């Protein structure tokens, strides 16, 4: 990706979306069965430029602009994958991913099971998701929980450029279907050094972003910005918050989470998706089960409200804030 780096002009420092691009390029270079397809992924390089330059570096056979057909974008890769390719399909925005659910539930997630291993489905479905960029209607939702409930797939959400690179490489190399959701609000929020070393990250591990002994803050994707911000504020209260990036929602690394809360006894789970039935519920449920005896305070969930994502003018009233996280943490600290 040397040219990308020159492009970015930050010697080796990439944004999250550039890291996605770097991982795609790396995977395509290393493995000719990797095929990138989706709407506007070719000449346009993707509406967020995640697939920029891929068409030039590879070719139109491997970088395919599709017709405007999400059900097909979800289904065609099942056939490709069963024949030994590794398709990476882009859904332009999560708001348009719903027709893909049928393919994930009824086919991709169970091709291996149905055929007792004869056929399999090593595909990746990528989609930018989440709010906070004042995007048009239907462009800001966070519905990751719908995917995390589907047996037989993996659900991965990166929170930084380096994680995006390593997790996407892992997702593409994984022998089973992976839904890879990209927090578009932080696509260009930060840069970090992301060596194009082809090293993948594990798909079954949560990351401890910050160690602490007083309370555990758990989140994923863009909300880690608010969560880490909240941890800073709490430090001013003299509280050391441990911050966990779940990263792989499915399969969930409950061990890391339970281990942390076993030490802190307190927990705030943060996500942008609506509260009810959000993936935070699963984490809280694990704590109410195996983790219960370690809890000294009620598990707090700071999430989007159970309402439709508002249009930009009222969007900020929907999005969880560092303030709400801090307030929840302080409530938790009130218990002895």
């Amino acid at each position: 990706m040397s040219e990308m780096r020159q492009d970015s002009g930050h010697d080796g420092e990439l944004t999250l979306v550039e890291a996605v691009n770097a991982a795609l390029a790396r995977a395509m270079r290393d493995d000719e069965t990797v095929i990138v397809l989706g709407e506007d992924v070719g000449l346009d390089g993707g509406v967020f430029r995640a697939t920029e330059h891929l068409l030039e570096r590879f070719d139109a056979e491997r970088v395919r602009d599709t017709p405007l057909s999400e059900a097909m974008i979800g289904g065609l890769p099942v056939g490709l994958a069963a024949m030994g390719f590794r398709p990476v399909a882009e859904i332009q925005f999560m708001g348009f991913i719903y027709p893909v659910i049928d393919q994930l539930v009824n086919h991709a997630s169970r091709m291996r099971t149905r055929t007792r291993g004869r056929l399999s489905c090593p595909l990746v479905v990528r989609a930018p998701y989440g709010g906070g960029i004042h995007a048009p209607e239907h462009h800001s939702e966070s519905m990751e929980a719908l995917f995390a409930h589907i047996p037989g797939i993996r659900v991965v959400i990166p929170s930084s450029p380096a994680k995006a690179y390593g997790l996407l490489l892992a997702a593409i190399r994984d022998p089973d279907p992976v839904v890879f959701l990209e927090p578009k609000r932080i696509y260009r929020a930060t840069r970090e050094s992301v060596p194009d070393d082809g090293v993948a990250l594990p798909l079954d591990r949560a990351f401890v972003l910050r160690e602490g002994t007083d309370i555990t803050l758990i989140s994923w994707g863009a909300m880690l910005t608010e969560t880490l911000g909240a941890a800073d504020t709490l430090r001013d209260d003299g509280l050391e918050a441990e911050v966990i990036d779940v990263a792989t929602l499915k399969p969930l690394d409950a061990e890391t989470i339970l281990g942390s809360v076993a030490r802190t006894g307190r927990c705030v789970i943060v996500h942008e998706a609506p509260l009810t039935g959000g993936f935070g519920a699963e984490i809280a449920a694990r704590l109410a089960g195996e983790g219960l005896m370690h809890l000294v305070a009620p598990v707090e969930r700071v999430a989007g409200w159970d309402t439709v994502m508002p249009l930009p003018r009222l969007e900020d009233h929907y999005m969880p804030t560092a303030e709400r996280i801090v307030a929840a943490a302080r409530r938790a600290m009130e218990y002895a």
Partner: protein
Amino acid sequence: MTVTASFSIDYTRLIDPDGQPVAELPAFASDRSRLRALYRWMVLTRSFDARAVALQRTGRLGTYASSLGQEAVGVGVALAMNDSDVLLPSFREHGAQLVRGVSMRELLLYWGGDERGSDFAGPREDFPVSIPVGSHASHGAGVALAFRLRGENRAAVVALGDGAMSKGDVYEAMNVAGAWNLPVVFLVINNQWAISVPREQQTAAETLAQKAIAAGFEGCQVDGNDVIAVHEVASQALSRTRNGGGATLIEAVTYRLADHTTVDDASRYRDDDVVSRHWQEEPIARLRQFLTERHGWSKGDEEALLEECSREVEQAAADYLAEPAAPATSIFDYLYAELPAALASQRAAVARD
């Protein structure tokens, strides 16, 4: 081997790019006031688009999809609709929405990120724009079924792009509209592009009109930059369908002269000179030529009209910019007819913030 079925697709153009008649013109083409109305709405639409883009560029509007170059389609069709018909617009049919009675202030509110912009004071039954491509097509079939069940002499008009014609839900909606002989017109605005994907890559079908053959009803093509042809074809299709003739598809062949939206940079994927060539065919100059030659449209008329339109647009922009945001709690107030008790605490929390 025997032939069991055969089909053909017609193309209608009445005025050529130079404003010259190339076929027998419908009666209204000799009615200056009706032509002026068509012209005025197209000019107003173009001024509105320009203003909306300017507002976005200066950070006072959200992402916006200009209809530059396509004005004849929405305007020509909407003026053929009855007030009692229902429009189900895509996100680029500003002209049609304006003709229908949606105010420019409402359009700006919507594109400025305010739900109140879809609470149209005018056409109370028209649908809000569908940002998701094509998923409103089946709503059009449902609206048409409602008319049929009530025995009403009304039609639904669903606006779709060339890209939308690749969507399965659009096909399903067309298929049921055919099977149930519903009073709905599928208006396909073929502007040759779906963001960066050209029409030819969208489908191997020579025309988009022929997609109707799969659904068992009539499809036709019309020169989408010839507002007289569009208006005529739409008027006929609408009266046919209102009177039990069943669904129709109209493919209006036009060209997207603007970027896809204000966040798009079309130069990444198409040559400017191709675009300039299409400027030769744009609908407004074409009708102006015809008006000038046949109906003595003068420089004075033109300036007065531009003046009038820009005044209206400026007023709407001012009203829009003066509109305070709705209260935060309104994000809960239209979720259900009545807010479930279970959500009262969430609403209260928002009220506190």
